[in-house]
C-alpha cells in the first residue's frame, strides 16, 4: 500500500502543475478499482496539541497541569444565565447537555436533589427559573441539539 503511494503523489503533483485549478481526479489515469481519492474535509473537533514534558524537580510534590474543560454551549433562552451561575457553582453545565432528553418532572427532581441532597444555595425563585429553562430546552419534546 505505502509502496504504491509514492508514485501516485508524484503523479498528482505533476498533474497539478500542468493544469492548476482543474479537478485533480480528472487527471488521474484510471487505476483498477479506484473509485475515489484525494478527498478531504475539515475535521470536526479541531486539533489537539501535544503536551510538553513538565519541568519537575526532585522534591516530593507530584503535579499535573490544570484540568482542561470542554463545555458545550447551553441552548439560548430565558434563564440561561441563571442556570450557568447557580448550577456552575459545583459543576460545569456539561452535566446538563450530556443527559438524554428527560421529562420535565425528572428535571424538577434533579434540581431539588441539588438543593436538598447537595446543599446547592439556590433560592426558590431561581430554582423555578432553572426548572423552566431545563423544561424549555432539554425534554424529549423540546431538545434540539
Amino acid at each position: 500500500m505505502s509502496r504504491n503511494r509514492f508514485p501516485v503523489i508524484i503523479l498528482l503533483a505533476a498533474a497539478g502543475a500542468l493544469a492548476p485549478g482543474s479537478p485533480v481526479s480528472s487527471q488521474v489515469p484510471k487505476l483498477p478499482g479506484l473509485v475515489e481519492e484525494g478527498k478531504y474535509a475539515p475535521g470536526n473537533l479541531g486539533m489537539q496539541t501535544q503536551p510538553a514534558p513538565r519541568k519537575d524537580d526532585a522534591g516530593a510534590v507530584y503535579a499535573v497541569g490544570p484540568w482542561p474543560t470542554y463545555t458545550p454551549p447551553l441552548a439560548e433562552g430565558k434563564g440561561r444565565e441563571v442556570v450557568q451561575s447557580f448550577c456552575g457553582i459545583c459543576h460545569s453545565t456539561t452535566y446538563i447537555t450530556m443527559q438524554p432528553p428527560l421529562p420535565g418532572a425528572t428535571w424538577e427532581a434533579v434540581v431539588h436533589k441539588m438543593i436538598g441532597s447537595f446543599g446547592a444555595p439556590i433560592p426558590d425563585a431561581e430554582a423555578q427559573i432553572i426548572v423552566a429553562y431545563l423544561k424549555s430546552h432539554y425534554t424529549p419534546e423540546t431538545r434540539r441539539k
Partner: protein
Amino acid sequence: MWSLSRRALLAWLGSSTAGLALSGQAHVQAASQATSPLPSFTGPGPNPYWNSVNPFVSYPQKLPLLRITDRGIQLETPRPYFLTPFTSNAAFYVRYHLELIPNAVDLSAWRLSLEGNVERPLQLSFDELVKNFKAVSVAAVNQCSGNSRSRFQPRVSGAQWGNGAMGNAVWTGVRLRELLGAAGIKPGTVQLQFQGIDRGPGPAGKGADAVMKSLDATDPALDDALVAYLMNDEPLPMLNGFPVRLVVPGKFGVYWIKHLTWIRAITSEDKNYWMATAYRIPDTPRGNTTPADAASGTVKTVPIGHVRMPVRSFIVVPDGSSKLPAGLPVRVQGIAFSGDGPVTKVEFSEDDGRSWIDATLGPDHGPYSFRAWQHTWKPSRPGQHVIAVRATDAKGNVQPDTPVWNPGGYLWDRIERQTLMLGAGG
C-alpha cells in the same frame, strides 16, 4: 493468587504478554470515518452505539478519551483499548463525583490515616506503606456501577456511559487486612469507611462536600481488598487516584476510593449521602424494578456494595464501522469478566442469539481480571448480520438477554450484539 510475589507477577506478566497472540493487535480496525460525526446526544431511545457519543478530549497523563463531563471529570475509554485484557493507565476511564480534584500532591505531607474505633491510630507515609508492608498484586476489573447506563429504557439521569466505564489492571499494594491488623480494629466496629482527598465545594454534611463509602466489617471482600500504589506496574495517574486507591476486587468502582487518605472503623452504619441515598439498588434479582414501582417508593433498596458485578462480555472487533467482504474469515474478539468468580465460558452467536458456539478463551489472569476471547467466524453471505456474545461464570451465572431497569441506571448486564454489513466480492 494472593501470595504472588512481585517477581512472579512480573514473570507472568512477561509470559502473558508473549502469549497474547490472541489479543491480535494487528487486527485493530479503525473506523472508516463517515462524513458526519455522531449526534451530540442520544435519547429518548437507548444509545445504539458501543461507547457514548461524546467527543475525544485530552487530559493530563491520558490518551484522548471520550468526554462525559469536564468539571467534575468523567472520561470514557474508547472501544479499541479493550482489545487487550489489560487496559493501559493512559486509557483507563475516569469517574469523579465532585469537582475539587487534586492537581498536585505532596508526598512529604500526605499520610494515610487509620482512625476511629482502633487500638492504635496510624498515620502512614507513602514510604512506610511501600516499605513496611508486604507487596501483593491482583489483576482486577474496575467497572463503574453505571457502566452502559445509556442503554436504559426509559432513560435515567446520570452519567450517560456507553460500555467504556470499565478497565482492567494489575494492582499492586498492601492488603487492607494487614493495615487493619496494624491499627487493631476494636470490637464493636460495624463498618469501615473510606475517604479520599478529592472533595467538592458543597456545605459539610451533604453529598457535595466529600464522597465516603463504607463496607461492612464482616464483608469477605475486605479480605481481597488492597491499598494500591501501583497500577500496571506504574504509579497511579492522578485521575485514577494517585498516590493510592482502594481496590475491592469483584465490587463496583464506587468503592475503590481514589486518593485514599482516611480509613475509619465506625461503630454504627454509615448514613452519609453516598451510602444512605446514592448508589442504592432494588433488593431484587438483578436489581430490577419498574418505573412505576420505583415511583411508588415501596421498593426496598440496598447499597450496591451488597452485590458483586454481574458477568458480562463484550465484542471489541469487528466494530461495525466498515463493511467487510463476505467470504473472508472474520476474527471476532473481545473480553469477558465477572465479579463473582472467574469466567468459565464465552459463547458466540452469528444469528442474533438464536444459536451459540463456544469461543476460545485467552490466558487466565485470575478470577477478577478481564478474560480475552476470540472466535473465527466465516460468514458466507453478503448482507446484514447480527452477531452476539454471552459469558458464563464459575457460579453458573449466564448473561441474560433481557434488559434491566432501576432508577440509578446500575447493573446493566444484557447480552451484547454487533450489527455488521458484509459486502459482495466479485
